[in-house]
Each structure stands twice: as structure tokens, then as C-alpha cells.
């Protein structure tokens, strides 16, 4: 069986599946249950300064987007950092780490943007025996209004400054958790690296309003008639997270910066995708908040089976394997020509391919009176919309035209690789050599 053990910034864990800093990791009770279930590591829910803890709202903290069968697709939260006393959390962290020495235990931190509070809290964390710290520069609600969380994460200079303070004041590995609520994820990642971060983790949650109550005209979740934006997470955010992870992984300035992948990881496959795009491990939250800790068993068995089938012996062999394939649009082969092909045996005659193409695309799928659907190669631009809307898996596929074949749409012969940079329509095209 494949070896799932993971070493991330020097922190060892029996598998690459960690729980993200969030409600499931707020207490000893929960974390012990997570470790018993098989989770490889935990990032303890964010600790704040010593003193009176933060308070949470006493109405709904979460709002959700559901599919028709109440499948939870996206979750929004307005919970703040831990609302339990610092000493209680530290005591529990120490106890848990003592009992689970083989598991990763990282502590998330968020204190005011000054050096002294960071200097004060870091030794207290070190004393617990925790494996590392994660700097919460991502939380987009509540704490950001107080100059913390994403208020720091949105200013690369602050990220660099705080990271440097932390590195100067602890021997522990430092993971910087990034907010996606920015324009270019590479800038905060670069800043974290300049500050000396050992790794970045991303994404934190995305600013969101899940829905609007159309009777009361108030955003959900509604607290006594009002609502505030929260942080969006869960399966719905995964594509956004994958792109941000890939952007950092393929950016020359940050390519060597380890990444802990977060954002909608629900199954072993999601985890493998994050890892292939450059994440050294993954962190999970919404999936366990939906189904409980037991899902890690599927993640372990699924990743193991995949690795065995592929002849991959260690997780590290997957890390970043898809990164070289992520390119700029300009690099894409404009001479790669495909045409949609409909498998008439699989077709169930719903006509969705036809109407999508007819109404919204290129009028490239003909419909006969007896509901037979035929691709018009002379119109098909290979947009893939028909493949995407077809309800039958594998019914519509794209056939690649070989070099030398003539594209019936353009009348041109398919040639070797060439991209936009040399295309005659490009005013700044370089002359083909």
C-alpha cells in the first residue's frame, strides 16, 4: 500500500490530511476525536491575545448554499477566532500533543499588528510542544474590522513585517495563511516569503453573502434583521482555491515556497488535485463540518488506491506534477483543433446540446425531426459547451484533428504548434522564425 506519510516544513504527519483552523479544531474534545478518526494533523483554531476573549454573535453563525437534495455546496460563516481563554487553549494543546506525538499540531494565531503581542504569545505556544504556527491573515469578517485577519493579509507590507517579527521570535516553522480577497495572490505570497515564512496556506474564506431573505429583505444569515458579509468556503470555492494555489506554485518568485492547500477539499480526489498543483498537504474544514471526522477514512483509502494504481509510492511524487502544465493563455496551441462527436448509442435525446449551441453558441449541432443530433463540423469551434451540458457522461467527446487534416470550419490545414505570440492577427506578433 502507498505510503501516505507527509513531511511539511519539517512537520511530520501520518497522512497529508490536516484539519484547518476553524470550529472543528477549537477544543481538545474535538481534536482528540479528529485524531482518533485518523486525521494526520490539525491547525488549532486561531488564538488571540491573552485577556478577555472575543465574543461571537448568539444568532446564526453560518449560512449555506444547498443543492435540491440539501447537499451542502457552500458554507458561509461569521464566527470569530476562539472565544475561549488563552490559557485554556494552551493547556489543551499541550495535553493533546503529548498524547498524539505522531500527529501534526499547528497553532493558528491572530494578535494585533504590533510586535509586542506577537513576542508575548509565541513562547507560550512553543511551550505547548506544538509543531508550528500558522498566521491568520485571512479571516475576512469581524477581526478584519479590528485591523487583524484579512486586513493584514490584504497589505503585502504588513504580511512581510509581521512574518518577520514572528520568525525572529520563534524557532517554530511559520505558515502564513492567505486571504483570497485580493487582486493577485502572488503579491501576498511573495511578501510572506520575503518575511521569511516557511510556507503559505490558502485559501482562507471568500467575502460572501449567501442569499437574501426576500420576505424581510435582509442578507442571510440574518441576525435580528441585519446581516454582515461572511467568509465563503466548501465545495463551491475549490476552483478558485486551485487557481490561487497554482498561481503561487508556478510563479518564479514563490515556486519554492511550500503550500498547504485549503478550499473545498471534500474527497481524496480534491486533495490529490491540490497536491498535483503544488500543495504539500491539504487542510479540510467544511467537509467535516458537514459529514463529521470519519470522511478521512475515504480520503486515506482513496488516495492510497490512486497511488497504488499509478505506481506512486509517496505523496511527494504527486506534489506539483501538474504545475508545468499550467500556462498562460498566450502559450496555448492555437493549432490544436477538435470537433465535438456525439455517440448516438449513448444519446438520450434531451436536446440540451442542440439548444445550448443553437441559442447561445455557434449553431453547430443539427436536430432532426426524429431527434437525432449531428455536429456540423463546419460550424463547430470546439467550445466544449455541449460536452458540459450533456447529462450523459461520455456521450459527447472531442475528437482531435491530426496535423495535415483540414478543418472544415476554416478550410485550413491543421499545422504544428503555434500560439498567439506568433499569430498574424496579433499586432505585436514576433515574426515566426
Amino acid at each position, binding site marked *: 500500500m502507498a505510503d501516505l506519510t507527509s513531511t511539511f516544513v519539517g512537520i511530520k504527519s501520518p497522512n497529508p490530511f490536516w484539519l484547518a483552523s476553524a470550529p472543528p479544531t477549537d477544543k481538545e474534545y474535538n481534536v482528540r476525536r479528529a485524531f482518533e478518526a485518523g486525521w494526520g494533523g490539525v491547525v488549532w483554531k486561531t488564538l488571540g491575545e491573552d485577556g478577555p476573549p472575543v465574543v461571537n454573535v448568539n444568532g446564526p453563525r453560518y449560512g449555506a448554499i444547498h*443543492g*435540491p*437534495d*440539501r447537499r451542502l455546496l457552500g458554507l458561509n460563516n461569521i464566527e470569530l477566532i476562539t472565544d475561549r481563554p488563552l490559557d485554556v487553549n494552551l493547556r489543551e494543546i499541550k495535553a493533546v500533543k503529548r498524547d498524539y506525538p505522531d500527529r501534526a499540531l499547528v497553532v493558528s494565531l491572530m494578535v494585533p499588528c504590533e510586535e509586542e503581542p506577537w513576542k508575548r504569545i509565541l513562547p507560550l505556544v512553543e511551550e505547548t510542544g506544538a509543531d508550528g504556527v500558522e498566521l491568520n491573515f485571512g479571516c475576512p469578517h469581524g477581526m478584519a474590522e479590528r485591523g487583524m485577519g484579512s486586513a493584514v493579509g490584504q497589505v503585502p507590507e504588513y504580511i512581510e513585517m509581521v512574518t518577520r517579527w514572528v520568525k525572529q521570535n520563534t524557532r517554530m516553522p511559520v505558515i502564513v495563511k492567505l486571504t483570497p480577497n485580493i487582486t493577485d495572490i502572488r503579491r501576498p505570497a511573495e511578501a510572506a516569503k520575503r518575511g521569511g515564512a516557511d510556507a503559505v496556506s490558502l485559501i482562507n474564506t471568500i467575502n460572501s453573502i449567501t442569499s437574501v431573505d426576500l420576505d424581510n429583505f435582509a442578507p442571510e444569515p440574518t441576525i435580528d434583521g441585519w446581516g454582515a458579509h461572511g467568509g465563503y468556503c466548501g465545495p463551491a470555492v475549490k476552483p478558485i482555491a486551485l487557481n490561487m494555489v497554482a498561481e503561487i506554485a508556478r510563479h518564479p518568485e514563490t515556486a519554492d515556497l511550500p503550500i498547504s492547500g485549503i478550499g473545498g477539499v471534500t474527497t481524496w480526489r480534491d486533495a490529490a488535485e491540490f497536491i498535483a498543483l503544488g500543495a504539500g498537504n491539504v487542510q479540510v474544514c467544511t467537509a467535516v463540518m458537514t459529514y463529521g471526522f470519519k470522511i478521512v477514512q475515504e480520503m486515506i483509502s482513496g488516495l492510497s488506491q490512486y497511488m497504488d494504481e499509478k505506481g506512486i509510492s509517496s505523496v511527494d511524487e504527486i506534489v506539483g506534477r501538474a504545475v508545468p502544465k499550467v500556462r498562460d493563455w498566450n502559450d496555448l496551441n492555437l493549432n490544436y483543433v477538435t470537433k465535438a462527436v456525439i455517440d448516438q448509442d449513448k444519446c*438520450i*435525446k*434531451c*436536446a*440540451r446540446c*442542440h*439548444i445550448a449551441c443553437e441559442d447561445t453558441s455557434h449553431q453547430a449541432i443539427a*436536430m432532426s425531426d426524429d*431527434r437525432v443530433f449531428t455536429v456540423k463540423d463546419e460550424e463547430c469551434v470546439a467550445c466544449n459547451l455541449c460536452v458540459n451540458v450533456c*447529462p*450523459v457522461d461520455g456521450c459527447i467527446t472531442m475528437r482531435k484533428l491530426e496535423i495535415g487534416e483540414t478543418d472544415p470550419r476554416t478550410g485550413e490545414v491543421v499545422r504544428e504548434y503555434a500560439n498567439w505570440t506568433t499569430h498574424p492577427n496579433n499586432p505585436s506578433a514576433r515574426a515566426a522564425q
Partner: protein
Amino acid sequence: MPSDPFTPGVAAGRLSADRIAANFADLHPPLDDHQAAVESDRCYFCYDAPCTQACPTSIDIPLFIRQISTGTPEAAALTIFSQNILGGMCARVCPTETLCEEACVRHEAEGKPVEIGRLQRHATDRLMARNSHPFQRAAKTGKHVAVVGAGPAGLACAHRLAMKGHDVTIYEAREKGGGLNEYGIAAYKAPGSFAQDELDWVLGIGGIRIEFGRRLSGDLTLDDLRATHDAVFLGMGLGGVNALTVEGSERNHVEDAVDWIARLRQSADKTDIPVGRDVVVIGGGMTAIDAAVQARLLGALNVTIAYRRDKAAMAASEFEQNLATSKGVRIIYNAAPREITDTGVVFVRTRSEGGKLVETGETFEIAADQVLRAIGQTLAGQPEVLALEGRKIAVDEHGRTSLAGVWAGGDCASGGDDLTVTAVAEGRDAAEDIHAALGA
């Protein structure tokens, strides 16, 4: 001593009232909101959808299902009712397995169509529960149309005419309206007083008056109707039954299934409906199935449907045949009745030879203390002036008969299957043609 399933002869109350009530509960119970949300999500919203094409009333099924899925079942109901004012009953009684659901692409894809009928019921129940009529009449035209029969065809025709601003008088032979919905459909398909509730709801449009106990060829003649109205629509259904010409068919324990079902439908709790211990139903259509299943539900010990042709030829759908057998009814194919005795029915076995049915000469007897004839209904009492096509009143694609100013639709008219939904379509379309004719 109270009777039970083992009591010989024909007896009422073989089961307790509670048991009978449970037996006759909704065959397809309504979907709740969550079930409807999940089921509606299965619809692919096909373009030019096969289900709609398969619906005799051409309900825009993908649209109404999408309206359910977005939390507006009332809007869905309007989509349904605008094509089929008896959409509530059709949701209950349509053989969807041979219509919309057979055409559903999910049926082709995975053998499990979207449950269109139950979704339709979800929507129509919701709107009808508001107890207000959703359509308004156009300005009065001053025209007056006679409709014969308050069954599905007559009601659909009358409603559409009333909506167009015409006044309508329906002449109904029986004491109640609804036609086969009230007297013929199996009780477990339209439990409670749905047929009457729906009738009242349809009449909510206004402009429709019903005169009960008025039978064409009785005190009422087509000439009178034509003389006193601007147009006449005939939707009186099939008033007669095919005769069973075998020895013993006049015996006391032999009855037409339609009459027995009509009595059962009119009974409050059905404990007063006598049923045999050993019941034999002769026939192969929906009436045979409905009679046999309801006999079992009343507590008959042995119920047999005997059909003279083979399974493939049976008019009742596969679904209906399976329903019957699941209720403990035995179906015997290729058995033609030869004689009804005091204690049973003697059948001769048959087989198909070159498309023709031949008797093998081999006979057998099935014990029976009650025999129900269900070998088809037939037109009765129609005005002789009207041309026939086969055994029905000949109509063109607009529902026009051979006589100017007289239209016909439903089971009494040629064309289409003898289904509630077909009758609704024909009544509706005839009304549109009448309206066009009256406006000319």
C-alpha cells in the same frame, strides 16, 4: 356473524372499515415539498421535450417542473391548467407510464423517468387548495353553447368556452357530474371527493350551468339543442357495454364491471359493497384491472382476470397488469369464456395463429361466485343523424361532426385513446373551434 374473505358467495363487509379505508388509500401519495424539490431536479429541461410531445394536452412539462424546482408550484399549476383544466385529475389517473413518463429521456437513460405525474399533482394540489379559480372570463359574447355530458370532455370544453366569454349549459344524464372520474376511475386513484371538488373548482370560472338528469335521446333531442343554442358539443361518453354472448351470462351473479364500480365509487365507506369470495373478471382493459383490484381490496379471496388474447395484446398497460398482480390478482391469458355456470366459468384455451385468434378446444373451469364483465363499452343513444366512424361519432381534427354546428369529443368521438387526458384535449380543442366559428 360478520363475513370475512372466506365467506362463500357474494357478501359485503369482508374486511373492516379501517382495513378497507387503508386498502383504498392513494395509489400515488402526494410528494411533499422536499420530495418535489429532489424529483424536479432530475428533469433535464429538454428542448422541444419528448414528454410534452407525448402529452395529449401538450402540457409544457419541463417548464412546470422548473417552476416547481424554483419554489413556485402555483406558477407550475397555471402552466398545467392553461393546457389541461383537469390537470389535477390527470395527475392522478393518467397512464403516465405510456405517455409522458415513457417518453422521458431519463426513462431511456436509466429506466427511471422523472415522476411527472406526481410532480403535476404536487403543483395542481397546491393551487387548487387556494380555493379560488385562477382564470378569468373574457367579456361576455352573448353566445350560448350546449354541452352534453359533464365528463372530462364536456367540462374541458365548457371551461374553455366560458373562459372565452360564452355561456354554457351542460346537460348531464346522471345525478352528479365528472363522468368516469366520478363513476368509473378506480377509487384508489382519486380518493375522497376529488372528482366533485375538481368539478366545483372548474365551475369557479363562472358562466357554466349544469342540468342533471338530462339524457340525450331521453327528454332531450339534438334538434332541440341546436334550435336553442348557438353550438352543441357532444361529450356523453360510451353509455353502453358490449354484450357477452355466452351461455349463462344472464345469471344473477353476473354483472357489468362498470356498474359494479360505479356503485362502489358512490359508496361512502365501501363496507356495503358486496363482493364474491371467488371473483372472475372477463376482459383485458383498464376496467377489468380496476374491477379486479378493487374486488381484492374489498376482501375477495380469489380474483382472476381472464383475457382471451395474450399478454402483449392486453389493453391494460404493463404497469396496470403489475399493479393487479401485486394486489394478488391472477391474470390468465388466452382464455375465452364459453359458459357461466352457477359455480364458475368454463373457458376454452386460445392461441394466435397468423394474427387470428383460434380456440384450441381445451377447456377448464374457474370457480366463481361473482362474474364481472369488462369486455368494453360502446356508444349508446347517439342521434342517428350523425355519421359514425367505426362505432363512434365521426369527427374531424377540430372535433366537428357531420352535422353543422355540432361538435363531439371524448370517448364518444372517433380518434384518440379512451383516456381522461385525451377527452380533455378534444373538449378543449373543440371549444377553440366553436369559439372561432361563433366569432365568424
